[in-house]
């Protein structure tokens, strides 16, 4: 197991270096100079333009700029935003918990509904229940996030007035950030009304963000379950006279979960990018909005730092998933 872990960690280093190079070069390949964008149609004198480029270090050769950047990264310094002048890591730490809170709730929502729905569809294969689950899943999967989000807002917030339209918490609640997770912070503050408000604000974005993963999980669980249900040992279990419920949930599901775990791991990565649209619709102050803004403003340090941190996170999630396989299925562990 230790060798397996070390091997996985060894693969991380070149991936990490690749990501720094990509993050650094991609933003510079986009045409448009951050200073020109900052001044817009007002224009800027050539001398002042040169002065500002020098101040931000853009006048140095690219290789040197990359060296300075990598040196900073290795020291844990991701630089400062050229717009807000705040350290990139500080900004990341303020927006990141919002995204994690939303993503985890979304994936939880997807798992809680997707797994049983998939199992149900597989167990009742070919019945109207199966067709209904798969129909809903394919519809959910093909729903454009932007449209789906606005539809939910119009129905639940504007027409029915059940949930707030957007934001993380109602404006009258004033919660000091401790962890950055609004649900936890409101609990720490001991403010029940604020907690409820935070929860209510979380419902719609989590549903919208969780819809696609839900569909994927339901479909994946169904097909994986169908495969397992056809295995000999399931027939044996049935022949032993076990209840269908026990056969499905205890014997079949555990084995069917392996591909599902893979998919959930991949979905977490996708969720982090999927949040961009959801965060925009629900004015959720998270990572996606922060990164998109930095692209528009050509805020090189923020984009480089942000992409790097997200990539590290995805690498970490994948590593965890690989290790989880080992736990669920010892055969994988021994095969390496």
């Amino acid at each position, binding site marked *: 197991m230790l060798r397996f872990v070390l091997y996985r960690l060894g693969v991380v280093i070149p991936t990490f270096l690749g990501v720094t190079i990509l993050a650094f070069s991609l933003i510079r390949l986009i045409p448009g100079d951050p200073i020109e964008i900052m001044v*817009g149609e007002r224009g800027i004198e050539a001398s002042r333009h040169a002065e500002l480029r020098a101040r931000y270090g853009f006048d140095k050769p690219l290789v040197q700029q990359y060296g300075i950047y990598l040196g900073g990264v290795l020291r844990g310094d991701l630089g400062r935003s050229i717009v807000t002048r705040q350290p990139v890591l500080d900004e990341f730490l303020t*927006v990141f918990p919002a995204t994690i809170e939303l993503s985890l709730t979304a994936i939880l929502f997807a798992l809680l509904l997707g797994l049983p729905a998939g199992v149900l569809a597989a167990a009742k294969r070919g019945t109207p229940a199966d067709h209904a689950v798969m129909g809903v899943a394919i519809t959910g999967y093909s729903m454009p996030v932007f449209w789906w989000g606005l539809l939910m807002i119009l129905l639940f917030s*504007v027409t029915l007035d059940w949930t707030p339209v*957007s*934001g993380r918490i109602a404006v009258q609640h004033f919660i000091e950030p401790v962890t950055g997770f609004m649900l936890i912070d409101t609990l720490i503050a001991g403010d029940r009304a604020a907690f409820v408000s935070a929860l209510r604000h979380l419902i719609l974005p989590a549903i919208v963000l969780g819809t696609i993963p839900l569909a994927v999980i339901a479909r994946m669980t169904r097909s994986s379950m169908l495969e397992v249900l056809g295995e000999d040992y399931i027939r044996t279990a049935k022949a032993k006279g076990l209840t269908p419920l026990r056969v499905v949930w205890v014997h079949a599901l555990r084995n069917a979960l392996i591909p599902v775990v893979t998919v959930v791991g991949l979905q977490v990565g996708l969720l982090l990018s999927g949040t961009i649209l959801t965060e*925009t619709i629900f004015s959720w102050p998270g990572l996606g909005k922060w990164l998109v803004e930095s692209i528009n403003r050509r805020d090189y340090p923020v984009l480089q730092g942000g992409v790097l941190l997200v990539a590290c996170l995805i690498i970490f999630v994948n590593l965890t998933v690989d290790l989880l396989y080992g736990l669920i299925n010892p055969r994988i562990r021994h095969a390496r």
Partner: protein
Amino acid sequence: MKRFSLAAAVLTAALATAPAQVAQAAQAGKTLVFCSEGSPEGFNPTLYSSGTTFDASARAVYNRLVEFERGSTKIVPGLAASWTVSEDGLVYTFKLRKGVKFHTTSYFTPSRDFNADDVLYSFNRQWKKDHPYHKVSGGNYQYFASMGMPKLLKSIEKVDATTVRFTLTKPEAPFIANMAMPFASILSAEYADKMAAAKTMDKVDFLPVGTGPFQYVDYRKDAVIRYKANPAYWSGKAKIDTLVFAITKDASVRWAKLKAGECHVMPYPNPADLEAMRKHPDVNLLQQEGLNVGYLAYNMKKKPFDNLKVRQALTMAINRDAIIKAVFQGAGKVAKNPIPPTIWSYNKATKAYPYDPAQAKKLLAEAGHAKGFETDIWAMPVQRPYNPNARRMAEMIQADWAAVGVKAKIISYEWGEYLKRSIKNSEHTTILLGWTGDNGDPDNFLHVLLGCDGAKDGGINLARWCHKPFDDLIMQAKATPDVKKRTALYEKAQLVFKAQAPWATIAHSIVFKPVRKNVVDFRIDPFGGHDFYGVDLK
């Protein structure tokens, strides 16, 4: 349907534990929520140039020596109770208001009233490269530089604690209007000294201390900014007690929040939503002409645009009424002058070029282009207040020109690249761009966009038009403090402009501002800002 019922079940469960309250529930005092369109870059308006930042800093937290009267471009006293200008137009002496208090906040308690030291600090920081604060927070004083202040200022002196004297290098009538712009906001020198002593100089720029009607309480990045009314405001406490900016980037969501009562005022509605806003029983849709102009400039350094007849012909070939309908969806007005009608000296007598393809063809033939020619139309890739859809506009112009035999190719680059290739390198032939006024002075349009100073590479006179009779008029007006004389000169200049046709003036936009009906006396700011002092809730 299954999805809906599931979602409804989850929602009902949550609601069962929730007291029936919606976001705007009662809070101590009156709270006005503004669904702002974006996050501020910081809280020091001298460092930035976006309207979003100005709303959050300059307009709420700070004052200037002089101010624009709310909802107009008129200059009124601010932190200066009065001022005088010397005969030669070179010396401006400001008498400062007495007894003005800086905000007392959780991070700073002032020990003295506002005085001349604060004025000196605020300007010298931007102007003097050796000022200890000059390089703090990036030190990019864009507006101070782009308004030409470094070259215009000769000296700023403290005459006594309540008198400040600005001496200029040349007479510049628009100077007083510049003093009302966000970059001329007055920051606290005492606070700056304290932060310098604590070695936390950059705090001055994100934990603001001003003299304005609202004081900063808290900012949650990309989410919420909170202010409370300054109880000691020199012009009287604001009518609302708490001001909240709920940052909401998407226009459809802003509209949903306004409808749901989660905010009181929203900027930048989608044109498609205007009809619904007009009809909504709880919403007032305010509107006003914007302080802007959208235009198509002909680069006269390139043939055949050096030929007056060609420019006139192309201008006459454009059906601008159709553009207003299709591109602005009615939220615009055909422009005939290079300045908007809300600016003083707007010349009503100017005759617009008619839409006349037959005459256009004739003029082209006279210019030796009976068979037409090939050219480009540069179209911006971004939405701007003066042009909501440049690409669409370019397509319409392309079709209009094709009808008179001119084949145009539409060219577009990414925004930064577009600006670089046009402003810096003058690569464009005909180009769509526009301008939003900074200080409400005609000079800010006529000199900046059409004067000889801006006609070289790097300048923003994109017609690259340097016409002596026009330039003489505007330079003379710049040096004349008398508004009547200036008005006459600018009116004349607009006629010269029209006759020479360096641009086809396209449109001035109309600004719409939906507000809830319980909002009292909100006025549209001609500069596009949002000012909540004087606004009440009923």
